Protein backbone atom coordinates (compact mmCIF):
# COMPACT_ATOMS: atom_id res chain seq x y z
CA UNK A 1 0.00 0.00 0.00
CA UNK A 2 1.44 3.34 -1.05
CA UNK A 3 -0.25 6.25 0.60
CA UNK A 4 0.65 9.70 1.82
CA UNK A 5 -0.64 9.17 5.32
CA UNK A 6 0.70 8.82 8.82
CA UNK A 7 -1.14 6.01 10.59
CA UNK A 8 -4.12 4.38 8.83
CA UNK A 9 -6.08 4.87 12.05
CA UNK A 10 -5.51 8.64 11.91
CA UNK A 11 -6.16 9.36 8.27
CA UNK A 12 -9.55 10.99 8.73
CA UNK A 13 -8.49 13.09 11.72
CA UNK A 14 -5.32 14.18 9.91
CA UNK A 15 -7.19 15.12 6.75
CA UNK A 16 -9.65 17.17 8.79
CA UNK A 17 -6.73 19.06 10.32
CA UNK A 18 -5.61 19.78 6.77
CA UNK A 19 -9.05 20.96 5.75
CA UNK A 20 -9.25 23.24 8.76
CA UNK A 21 -5.84 24.72 7.98
CA UNK A 22 -6.52 25.15 4.28
CA UNK A 23 -10.02 26.58 4.54
CA UNK A 24 -10.27 29.14 7.31
CA UNK A 25 -13.82 29.99 6.30
CA UNK A 26 -14.93 26.53 7.36
CA UNK A 27 -15.18 25.45 10.97
CA UNK A 28 -14.07 21.94 11.79
CA UNK A 29 -15.40 20.24 14.91
CA UNK A 30 -12.54 17.79 15.33
CA UNK A 31 -14.08 15.91 18.22
CA UNK A 32 -17.19 15.10 16.26
CA UNK A 33 -15.51 15.09 12.84
CA UNK A 34 -17.94 17.57 11.43
CA UNK A 35 -17.09 20.25 8.86
CA UNK A 36 -19.35 23.31 9.18
CA UNK A 37 -19.83 26.61 7.46
CA UNK A 38 -17.91 29.18 9.43
CA UNK A 39 -21.08 31.21 9.90
CA UNK A 40 -23.33 28.32 10.90
CA UNK A 41 -26.04 28.32 12.05
CA UNK A 42 -27.50 30.77 9.54
CA UNK A 43 -30.57 32.31 11.12
CA UNK A 44 -33.80 31.46 9.34
CA UNK A 45 -32.14 29.22 6.76
CA UNK A 46 -32.84 25.52 6.44
CA UNK A 47 -29.67 23.70 7.45
CA UNK A 48 -28.33 21.11 5.00
CA UNK A 49 -26.44 18.22 6.55
CA UNK A 50 -24.86 15.35 4.71
CA UNK A 51 -22.05 12.97 5.38
CA UNK A 52 -20.81 9.50 4.76
CA UNK A 53 -17.68 7.46 4.80
CA UNK A 54 -14.45 9.29 4.02
CA UNK A 55 -12.48 8.51 0.89
CA UNK A 56 -14.86 10.29 -1.49
CA UNK A 57 -13.33 13.76 -1.25
CA UNK A 58 -14.20 16.47 -2.09
CA UNK A 59 -17.60 14.98 -1.20
CA UNK A 60 -18.98 15.85 1.36
CA UNK A 61 -16.72 18.09 3.44
CA UNK A 62 -15.53 19.92 0.34
CA UNK A 63 -19.10 20.88 -0.46
CA UNK A 64 -19.66 22.80 2.75
CA UNK A 65 -20.10 26.52 2.31
CA UNK A 66 -22.54 29.19 1.20
CA UNK A 67 -24.85 27.84 -1.49
CA UNK A 68 -24.31 24.20 -0.69
CA UNK A 69 -24.06 22.19 2.56
CA UNK A 70 -24.09 23.68 6.05
CA UNK A 71 -22.31 20.70 7.54
CA UNK A 72 -20.82 17.35 6.60
CA UNK A 73 -20.00 14.41 8.85
CA UNK A 74 -16.87 12.43 8.04
CA UNK A 75 -16.95 8.73 8.84
CA UNK A 76 -14.01 6.38 8.79
CA UNK A 77 -12.91 5.50 5.26
CA UNK A 78 -15.92 3.96 3.46
CA UNK A 79 -17.78 3.66 6.76
CA UNK A 80 -20.87 5.67 7.55
CA UNK A 81 -20.41 8.25 10.30
CA UNK A 82 -22.07 7.58 13.64
CA UNK A 83 -25.28 9.17 14.94
CA UNK A 84 -23.42 11.36 17.47
CA UNK A 85 -21.71 13.16 14.60
CA UNK A 86 -24.98 13.73 12.82
CA UNK A 87 -26.60 15.05 15.97
CA UNK A 88 -23.73 17.49 16.48
CA UNK A 89 -23.95 18.60 12.87
CA UNK A 90 -27.70 19.03 13.05
CA UNK A 91 -27.51 21.09 16.22
CA UNK A 92 -24.65 23.11 14.78
CA UNK A 93 -26.59 24.21 11.71
CA UNK A 94 -30.06 24.59 13.12
CA UNK A 95 -30.95 28.20 12.36
CA UNK A 96 -34.56 27.77 13.40
CA UNK A 97 -35.90 26.69 10.02
CA UNK A 98 -35.23 22.98 10.38
CA UNK A 99 -32.58 20.70 8.99
CA UNK A 100 -32.48 18.48 5.92
CA UNK A 101 -30.45 15.28 6.08
CA UNK A 102 -29.14 14.27 2.68
CA UNK A 103 -28.36 10.58 2.87
CA UNK A 104 -26.90 8.33 0.21
CA UNK A 105 -28.76 5.05 0.13
CA UNK A 106 -26.41 2.67 1.89
CA UNK A 107 -27.66 0.55 4.77
CA UNK A 108 -25.11 1.99 7.16
CA UNK A 109 -25.72 5.61 6.21
CA UNK A 110 -29.47 5.18 6.32
CA UNK A 111 -29.49 3.48 9.73
CA UNK A 112 -27.07 5.89 11.35
CA UNK A 113 -28.93 8.94 10.05
CA UNK A 114 -32.16 7.30 11.20
CA UNK A 115 -30.82 6.87 14.73
CA UNK A 116 -29.52 10.44 14.65
CA UNK A 117 -32.94 11.74 13.67
CA UNK A 118 -34.49 9.72 16.51
CA UNK A 119 -31.99 11.22 18.95
CA UNK A 120 -32.60 14.75 17.69
CA UNK A 121 -36.34 14.23 17.98
CA UNK A 122 -35.96 12.96 21.50
CA UNK A 123 -33.59 15.69 22.64
CA UNK A 124 -34.56 18.91 20.91
CA UNK A 125 -37.21 20.70 18.96
CA UNK A 126 -35.26 20.75 15.72
CA UNK A 127 -37.35 19.59 12.81
CA UNK A 128 -35.45 17.10 10.68
CA UNK A 129 -36.46 15.79 7.27
CA UNK A 130 -34.44 13.09 5.57
CA UNK A 131 -34.01 12.64 1.85
CA UNK A 132 -32.35 9.50 0.54
CA UNK A 133 -30.46 9.63 -2.77
CA UNK A 134 -30.68 6.45 -4.86
CA UNK A 135 -29.68 7.05 -8.44
CA UNK A 136 -27.39 4.17 -9.43
CA UNK A 137 -28.93 2.27 -12.33
CA UNK A 138 -26.32 -0.46 -11.97
CA UNK A 139 -28.35 -1.79 -9.07
CA UNK A 140 -31.67 -3.50 -9.57
CA UNK A 141 -34.28 -1.62 -7.67
CA UNK A 142 -36.53 -3.94 -5.73
CA UNK A 143 -38.73 -3.99 -2.69
CA UNK A 144 -36.79 -6.98 -1.45
CA UNK A 145 -33.34 -5.42 -1.57
CA UNK A 146 -31.68 -2.36 -0.10
CA UNK A 147 -32.52 -0.54 -3.34
CA UNK A 148 -30.23 1.58 -5.43
CA UNK A 149 -27.06 3.21 -4.23
CA UNK A 150 -26.69 6.94 -4.01
CA UNK A 151 -23.90 8.13 -6.27
CA UNK A 152 -23.24 11.05 -8.64
CA UNK A 153 -26.65 12.69 -8.34
CA UNK A 154 -25.73 13.48 -4.74
CA UNK A 155 -23.22 16.12 -5.88
CA UNK A 156 -25.70 17.81 -8.20
CA UNK A 157 -28.43 17.59 -5.56
CA UNK A 158 -26.32 19.17 -2.85
CA UNK A 159 -25.53 22.07 -5.18
CA UNK A 160 -29.10 22.63 -6.39
CA UNK A 161 -30.81 22.15 -3.06
CA UNK A 162 -28.11 24.21 -1.39
CA UNK A 163 -29.02 27.13 -3.63
CA UNK A 164 -32.70 26.73 -2.76
CA UNK A 165 -31.94 26.71 0.97
CA UNK A 166 -29.76 29.78 0.52
CA UNK A 167 -32.79 31.55 -0.99
CA UNK A 168 -34.56 31.03 2.31
CA UNK A 169 -37.11 28.49 1.15
CA UNK A 170 -38.90 26.51 3.86
CA UNK A 171 -37.90 22.99 4.84
CA UNK A 172 -40.82 21.24 3.15
CA UNK A 173 -40.06 22.92 -0.16
CA UNK A 174 -36.36 22.25 0.10
CA UNK A 175 -37.04 18.59 0.86
CA UNK A 176 -39.49 18.32 -2.03
CA UNK A 177 -36.93 19.80 -4.35
CA UNK A 178 -34.32 17.32 -3.12
CA UNK A 179 -36.68 14.44 -3.84
CA UNK A 180 -37.40 15.84 -7.27
CA UNK A 181 -33.70 16.10 -8.08
CA UNK A 182 -33.10 12.55 -6.90
CA UNK A 183 -36.02 11.45 -9.04
CA UNK A 184 -34.60 12.93 -12.20
CA UNK A 185 -30.96 11.87 -11.79
CA UNK A 186 -29.43 8.59 -12.90
CA UNK A 187 -25.86 7.33 -12.74
CA UNK A 188 -23.66 4.45 -13.78
CA UNK A 189 -19.98 3.81 -13.10
CA UNK A 190 -17.01 1.75 -14.23
CA UNK A 191 -13.75 0.86 -12.49
CA UNK A 192 -10.45 -0.01 -14.14
CA UNK A 193 -8.63 -0.70 -10.89
CA UNK A 194 -9.51 -1.35 -7.28
CA UNK A 195 -8.78 1.03 -4.46
CA UNK A 196 -7.05 0.22 -1.17
CA UNK A 197 -8.73 1.04 2.12
CA UNK A 198 -5.89 2.29 4.37
CA UNK A 199 -6.92 0.12 7.33
CA UNK A 200 -7.18 -2.95 5.10
CA UNK A 201 -3.78 -2.34 3.56
CA UNK A 202 -4.42 -4.12 0.28
CA UNK A 203 -6.66 -3.67 -2.75
CA UNK A 204 -10.31 -4.46 -2.07
CA UNK A 205 -10.53 -6.53 -5.21
CA UNK A 206 -8.34 -7.82 -7.94
CA UNK A 207 -8.91 -6.51 -11.43
CA UNK A 208 -6.51 -8.09 -13.92
CA UNK A 209 -4.89 -6.14 -16.73
CA UNK A 210 -7.34 -6.06 -19.59
CA UNK A 211 -10.50 -6.17 -17.51
CA UNK A 212 -12.89 -3.64 -16.00
CA UNK A 213 -15.85 -3.68 -13.64
CA UNK A 214 -19.07 -2.27 -14.98
CA UNK A 215 -21.58 -0.93 -12.47
CA UNK A 216 -19.08 -0.16 -9.76
CA UNK A 217 -20.02 1.66 -6.58
CA UNK A 218 -17.89 4.19 -4.76
CA UNK A 219 -16.70 2.03 -1.89
CA UNK A 220 -14.63 -0.47 -3.80
CA UNK A 221 -17.47 -2.93 -3.62
CA UNK A 222 -17.30 -5.01 -6.79
CA UNK A 223 -19.54 -4.04 -9.69
CA UNK A 224 -22.23 -5.92 -11.56
CA UNK A 225 -20.08 -7.61 -14.14
CA UNK A 226 -16.56 -7.87 -15.36
CA UNK A 227 -15.85 -7.28 -19.02
CA UNK A 228 -12.78 -6.86 -21.21
CA UNK A 229 -11.29 -3.39 -21.27
CA UNK A 230 -12.76 -1.42 -24.18
CA UNK A 231 -12.14 1.89 -25.92
CA UNK A 232 -13.63 4.97 -24.24
CA UNK A 233 -16.24 5.11 -27.00
CA UNK A 234 -17.63 1.73 -25.98
CA UNK A 235 -17.25 2.37 -22.27
CA UNK A 236 -19.32 5.53 -22.64
CA UNK A 237 -21.96 3.49 -24.41
CA UNK A 238 -21.98 0.92 -21.60
CA UNK A 239 -22.58 3.68 -19.08
CA UNK A 240 -25.05 5.87 -20.93
CA UNK A 241 -27.21 3.12 -22.41
CA UNK A 242 -28.53 1.77 -19.09
CA UNK A 243 -29.17 5.32 -17.92
CA UNK A 244 -31.25 6.11 -20.98
CA UNK A 245 -32.99 2.75 -20.70
CA UNK A 246 -33.99 3.53 -17.13
CA UNK A 247 -35.53 6.95 -17.64
CA UNK A 248 -36.62 9.09 -20.55
CA UNK A 249 -34.38 12.11 -20.85
CA UNK A 250 -35.29 15.05 -23.02
CA UNK A 251 -33.40 18.08 -24.17
CA UNK A 252 -31.61 20.03 -21.47
CA UNK A 253 -29.74 17.77 -19.09
CA UNK A 254 -26.92 18.34 -16.66
CA UNK A 255 -24.20 15.94 -17.75
CA UNK A 256 -21.68 14.98 -15.09
CA UNK A 257 -18.63 12.86 -15.85
CA UNK A 258 -17.09 12.06 -12.50
CA UNK A 259 -13.61 10.74 -11.88
CA UNK A 260 -13.27 8.04 -9.25
CA UNK A 261 -9.87 9.28 -8.15
CA UNK A 262 -7.15 7.57 -10.16
CA UNK A 263 -8.25 8.51 -13.65
CA UNK A 264 -6.58 11.62 -15.07
CA UNK A 265 -8.72 14.56 -16.13
CA UNK A 266 -7.34 14.05 -19.64
CA UNK A 267 -9.20 10.75 -19.81
CA UNK A 268 -12.35 12.16 -18.24
CA UNK A 269 -12.52 14.63 -21.10
CA UNK A 270 -12.09 11.78 -23.58
CA UNK A 271 -15.06 10.07 -21.94
CA UNK A 272 -17.03 13.30 -21.85
CA UNK A 273 -16.55 13.71 -25.60
CA UNK A 274 -17.99 10.26 -26.18
CA UNK A 275 -20.89 10.78 -23.80
CA UNK A 276 -21.72 14.09 -25.46
CA UNK A 277 -21.65 12.42 -28.88
CA UNK A 278 -24.06 9.70 -27.73
CA UNK A 279 -26.44 12.25 -26.23
CA UNK A 280 -26.33 14.39 -29.32
CA UNK A 281 -27.26 11.40 -31.43
CA UNK A 282 -30.13 10.70 -29.05
CA UNK A 283 -31.36 14.27 -29.41
CA UNK A 284 -30.64 15.10 -25.78
CA UNK A 285 -29.03 18.53 -25.50
CA UNK A 286 -26.63 19.20 -22.65
CA UNK A 287 -27.56 22.33 -20.73
CA UNK A 288 -24.75 22.23 -18.18
CA UNK A 289 -21.79 20.00 -17.58
CA UNK A 290 -19.43 19.02 -14.82
CA UNK A 291 -16.22 17.07 -15.45
CA UNK A 292 -13.80 16.09 -12.74
CA UNK A 293 -13.17 14.06 -9.60
CA UNK A 294 -15.99 15.23 -7.33
CA UNK A 295 -17.13 11.95 -5.78
CA UNK A 296 -14.14 9.71 -5.60
CA UNK A 297 -13.35 6.26 -4.36
CA UNK A 298 -9.83 6.85 -3.03
CA UNK A 299 -7.38 6.17 -5.87
CA UNK A 300 -9.67 3.96 -7.91
CA UNK A 301 -9.26 4.38 -11.68
CA UNK A 302 -12.57 4.74 -13.45
CA UNK A 303 -15.44 7.12 -13.84
CA UNK A 304 -19.16 7.49 -13.57
CA UNK A 305 -21.69 9.27 -15.71
CA UNK A 306 -24.67 11.07 -14.20
CA UNK A 307 -27.50 12.60 -16.16
CA UNK A 308 -29.98 14.90 -14.51
CA UNK A 309 -33.08 16.15 -16.27
CA UNK A 310 -32.97 19.88 -15.73
CA UNK A 311 -35.60 22.56 -16.18
CA UNK A 312 -35.41 26.32 -15.89
CA UNK A 313 -35.70 26.26 -12.13
CA UNK A 314 -33.04 23.61 -11.63
CA UNK A 315 -30.69 25.40 -14.02
CA UNK A 316 -31.21 28.68 -12.23
CA UNK A 317 -30.37 27.00 -8.93
CA UNK A 318 -27.40 25.22 -10.51
CA UNK A 319 -26.06 28.54 -11.77
CA UNK A 320 -26.56 30.31 -8.43
CA UNK A 321 -23.42 31.26 -6.52
CA UNK A 322 -21.66 28.55 -4.56
CA UNK A 323 -18.61 28.96 -2.42
CA UNK A 324 -17.10 25.72 -1.21
CA UNK A 325 -13.62 24.21 -1.50
CA UNK A 326 -14.84 21.68 -4.04
CA UNK A 327 -17.30 23.66 -6.13
CA UNK A 328 -17.16 27.39 -6.49
CA UNK A 329 -18.59 29.99 -8.80
CA UNK A 330 -20.27 33.33 -8.66
CA UNK A 331 -18.61 33.92 -5.30
Amino acid at each position, binding site marked *: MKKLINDPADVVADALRGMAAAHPRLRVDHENRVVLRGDAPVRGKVGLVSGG*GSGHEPMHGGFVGPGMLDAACA*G*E*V*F*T*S*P*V*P*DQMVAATQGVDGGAGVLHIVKN*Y*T*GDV*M*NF*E*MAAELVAAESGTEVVTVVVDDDV*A*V*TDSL*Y*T*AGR*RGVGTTVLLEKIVGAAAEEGRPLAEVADLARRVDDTGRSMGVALTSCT*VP*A*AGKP*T*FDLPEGEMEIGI*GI*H*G*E*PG*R*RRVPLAPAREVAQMLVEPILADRTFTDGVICFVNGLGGTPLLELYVVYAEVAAILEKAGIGIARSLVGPYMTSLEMAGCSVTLLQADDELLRLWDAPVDTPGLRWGA
Partner: protein
Amino acid sequence: MNAAQLTAWLTRFAELVHAQRDELTALDSAIGDADHGSNMDRGMTEVVAALAEAPPDDAAALLKRTGTTLVSKVGGASGPLYGTLFLRMAGAIGDGFAPALRAGFEGVLARGKAEPGDKTMVDALGPACDVLDAGGSLAEAAQAAADGRDATVPLVARKGRASYLGERSAGHQDPGATSTALLLQAAAETLGGVQGQGEEATP
Protein backbone atom coordinates in the same frame (compact mmCIF):
# COMPACT_ATOMS: atom_id res chain seq x y z
CA MET B 1 -26.18 -13.44 34.46
CA ASN B 2 -23.92 -10.94 36.17
CA ALA B 3 -21.74 -8.12 34.94
CA ALA B 4 -18.51 -10.06 35.41
CA GLN B 5 -19.76 -12.89 33.23
CA LEU B 6 -20.90 -10.53 30.53
CA THR B 7 -17.59 -8.72 30.69
CA ALA B 8 -15.78 -12.00 30.17
CA TRP B 9 -18.04 -12.72 27.21
CA LEU B 10 -17.48 -9.34 25.57
CA THR B 11 -13.77 -9.40 26.27
CA ARG B 12 -13.51 -12.79 24.62
CA PHE B 13 -15.58 -11.55 21.68
CA ALA B 14 -13.22 -8.58 21.33
CA GLU B 15 -10.25 -10.96 21.33
CA LEU B 16 -11.76 -13.16 18.66
CA VAL B 17 -12.66 -10.18 16.51
CA HIS B 18 -9.19 -8.74 16.88
CA ALA B 19 -7.58 -12.05 15.97
CA GLN B 20 -9.82 -12.46 12.93
CA ARG B 21 -9.88 -8.85 11.91
CA ASP B 22 -8.10 -9.49 8.61
CA GLU B 23 -10.31 -12.47 7.78
CA LEU B 24 -13.45 -10.41 8.40
CA THR B 25 -12.09 -7.64 6.19
CA ALA B 26 -11.13 -10.13 3.50
CA LEU B 27 -14.70 -11.49 3.48
CA ASP B 28 -15.98 -7.92 3.25
CA SER B 29 -13.55 -7.22 0.40
CA ALA B 30 -15.09 -9.96 -1.68
CA ILE B 31 -18.66 -8.71 -1.47
CA GLY B 32 -18.42 -5.38 0.31
CA ASP B 33 -16.13 -2.50 1.09
CA ALA B 34 -13.32 -4.08 3.09
CA ASP B 35 -14.05 -2.57 6.47
CA HIS B 36 -15.97 -5.09 8.55
CA GLY B 37 -12.84 -6.28 10.36
CA SER B 38 -11.67 -2.78 11.23
CA ASN B 39 -15.21 -1.69 12.12
CA MET B 40 -15.77 -4.50 14.58
CA ASP B 41 -12.24 -4.35 15.96
CA ARG B 42 -12.44 -0.61 16.51
CA GLY B 43 -15.83 -0.98 18.17
CA MET B 44 -15.00 -3.88 20.47
CA THR B 45 -11.68 -2.33 21.47
CA GLU B 46 -13.65 0.74 22.55
CA VAL B 47 -16.17 -1.42 24.40
CA VAL B 48 -13.49 -3.24 26.37
CA ALA B 49 -11.82 0.08 27.20
CA ALA B 50 -15.13 1.65 28.25
CA LEU B 51 -16.00 -1.30 30.47
CA ALA B 52 -12.53 -1.28 32.03
CA GLU B 53 -12.58 2.44 32.67
CA ALA B 54 -15.76 2.37 34.71
CA PRO B 55 -16.98 -1.19 35.21
CA PRO B 56 -20.78 -1.13 35.34
CA ASP B 57 -22.02 -3.17 38.21
CA ASP B 58 -25.18 -4.50 36.76
CA ALA B 59 -25.75 -6.49 33.64
CA ALA B 60 -28.25 -4.11 32.08
CA ALA B 61 -26.01 -1.07 32.48
CA LEU B 62 -23.12 -3.03 31.03
CA LEU B 63 -25.06 -4.07 27.96
CA LYS B 64 -26.37 -0.57 27.50
CA ARG B 65 -22.88 0.86 27.68
CA THR B 66 -21.77 -1.72 25.14
CA GLY B 67 -24.58 -0.78 22.79
CA THR B 68 -24.09 2.97 23.01
CA THR B 69 -20.34 2.57 22.59
CA LEU B 70 -20.82 0.55 19.44
CA VAL B 71 -23.41 2.97 18.07
CA SER B 72 -21.15 5.94 18.69
CA LYS B 73 -17.84 4.41 17.62
CA VAL B 74 -18.44 2.03 14.73
CA GLY B 75 -20.66 3.54 12.08
CA GLY B 76 -21.40 1.63 8.88
CA ALA B 77 -24.05 -1.06 9.01
CA SER B 78 -22.51 -3.00 11.86
CA GLY B 79 -22.52 -0.06 14.30
CA PRO B 80 -26.28 0.45 14.45
CA LEU B 81 -26.99 -3.28 14.14
CA TYR B 82 -24.66 -4.57 16.86
CA GLY B 83 -25.42 -1.45 18.89
CA THR B 84 -29.15 -2.13 18.73
CA LEU B 85 -28.53 -5.78 19.56
CA PHE B 86 -26.88 -4.88 22.88
CA LEU B 87 -29.21 -1.98 23.68
CA ARG B 88 -32.20 -4.29 23.35
CA MET B 89 -30.48 -7.03 25.29
CA ALA B 90 -30.03 -4.55 28.13
CA GLY B 91 -33.79 -4.24 28.49
CA ALA B 92 -34.36 -7.98 28.69
CA ILE B 93 -31.29 -9.35 30.46
CA GLY B 94 -33.26 -9.49 33.67
CA ASP B 95 -35.17 -12.39 32.12
CA GLY B 96 -32.00 -14.29 31.30
CA PHE B 97 -29.56 -14.60 28.46
CA ALA B 98 -31.80 -16.35 25.95
CA PRO B 99 -34.69 -13.89 26.16
CA ALA B 100 -32.19 -11.03 26.03
CA LEU B 101 -30.56 -12.38 22.91
CA ARG B 102 -34.00 -12.88 21.37
CA ALA B 103 -34.87 -9.25 22.18
CA GLY B 104 -31.59 -8.14 20.66
CA PHE B 105 -32.28 -10.17 17.57
CA GLU B 106 -35.67 -8.54 17.19
CA GLY B 107 -33.98 -5.18 17.48
CA VAL B 108 -31.63 -6.13 14.66
CA LEU B 109 -34.58 -7.19 12.53
CA ALA B 110 -36.42 -3.95 13.22
CA ARG B 111 -33.38 -1.78 12.55
CA GLY B 112 -32.09 -3.54 9.46
CA LYS B 113 -35.33 -4.94 8.01
CA ALA B 114 -33.50 -8.03 6.79
CA GLU B 115 -35.19 -11.40 6.69
CA PRO B 116 -33.67 -14.82 7.17
CA GLY B 117 -31.98 -15.84 3.97
CA ASP B 118 -30.97 -12.30 3.00
CA LYS B 119 -27.33 -13.23 3.65
CA THR B 120 -26.74 -11.10 6.74
CA MET B 121 -25.86 -11.50 10.40
CA VAL B 122 -29.52 -12.40 10.87
CA ASP B 123 -28.73 -15.80 9.39
CA ALA B 124 -26.32 -16.57 12.21
CA LEU B 125 -28.19 -14.84 15.03
CA GLY B 126 -31.66 -16.26 14.29
CA PRO B 127 -30.71 -19.98 14.50
CA ALA B 128 -28.74 -19.33 17.70
CA CYS B 129 -31.78 -17.71 19.32
CA ASP B 130 -33.96 -20.60 18.21
CA VAL B 131 -31.63 -23.14 19.83
CA LEU B 132 -31.52 -21.23 23.10
CA ASP B 133 -35.29 -20.73 23.13
CA ALA B 134 -35.69 -24.44 22.67
CA GLY B 135 -33.53 -25.01 25.74
CA GLY B 136 -30.33 -25.80 23.94
CA SER B 137 -26.90 -25.03 25.36
CA LEU B 138 -24.70 -22.11 24.39
CA ALA B 139 -22.38 -24.56 22.69
CA GLU B 140 -25.30 -25.76 20.59
CA ALA B 141 -26.31 -22.16 19.89
CA ALA B 142 -22.75 -21.35 18.79
CA GLN B 143 -22.87 -24.36 16.49
CA ALA B 144 -26.18 -23.16 15.07
CA ALA B 145 -24.68 -19.71 14.45
CA ALA B 146 -21.68 -21.29 12.74
CA ASP B 147 -23.97 -23.41 10.60
CA GLY B 148 -26.03 -20.34 9.77
CA ARG B 149 -22.84 -18.50 8.85
CA ASP B 150 -21.78 -21.36 6.56
CA ALA B 151 -25.23 -21.43 5.02
CA THR B 152 -24.80 -17.83 3.87
CA VAL B 153 -22.19 -18.91 1.33
CA PRO B 154 -24.54 -19.96 -1.50
CA LEU B 155 -27.09 -17.22 -0.81
CA VAL B 156 -27.68 -14.19 -3.00
CA ALA B 157 -27.55 -11.09 -0.80
CA ARG B 158 -30.70 -9.02 -0.56
CA LYS B 159 -29.66 -6.57 2.15
CA GLY B 160 -26.54 -4.59 2.88
CA ARG B 161 -23.75 -3.71 0.53
CA ALA B 162 -23.39 -7.22 -0.85
CA SER B 163 -26.87 -6.94 -2.34
CA TYR B 164 -25.48 -4.63 -5.04
CA LEU B 165 -23.60 -7.55 -6.48
CA GLY B 166 -26.78 -9.49 -7.22
CA GLU B 167 -26.02 -13.05 -8.28
CA ARG B 168 -22.31 -12.40 -7.91
CA SER B 169 -22.68 -12.33 -4.13
CA ALA B 170 -23.39 -16.07 -4.14
CA GLY B 171 -20.38 -18.21 -3.26
CA HIS B 172 -19.07 -15.87 -0.58
CA GLN B 173 -19.53 -16.06 3.17
CA ASP B 174 -21.23 -13.06 4.77
CA PRO B 175 -18.86 -11.05 6.98
CA GLY B 176 -21.56 -9.98 9.45
CA ALA B 177 -22.77 -13.56 9.92
CA THR B 178 -19.14 -14.48 10.51
CA SER B 179 -18.64 -11.93 13.27
CA THR B 180 -21.96 -12.98 14.82
CA ALA B 181 -20.79 -16.58 14.89
CA LEU B 182 -17.77 -15.33 16.86
CA LEU B 183 -20.12 -13.60 19.29
CA LEU B 184 -21.83 -16.90 19.98
CA GLN B 185 -18.54 -18.78 20.12
CA ALA B 186 -17.37 -16.32 22.76
CA ALA B 187 -20.60 -16.88 24.67
CA ALA B 188 -20.14 -20.65 24.58
CA GLU B 189 -16.55 -20.31 25.77
CA THR B 190 -17.17 -17.86 28.60
CA LEU B 191 -20.76 -18.47 29.66
CA GLY B 192 -20.55 -22.17 28.86
CA GLY B 193 -21.98 -23.40 32.13
CA VAL B 194 -24.80 -20.91 31.94
CA GLN B 195 -28.14 -22.29 30.80
CA GLY B 196 -30.10 -20.24 28.36
CA GLN B 197 -33.27 -20.14 30.46
CA GLY B 198 -32.35 -17.31 32.76
CA GLU B 199 -30.85 -19.52 35.48
CA GLU B 200 -27.53 -18.51 36.97
CA ALA B 201 -24.51 -20.66 36.31
CA THR B 202 -23.54 -23.11 39.01
CA PRO B 203 -19.81 -22.59 39.37
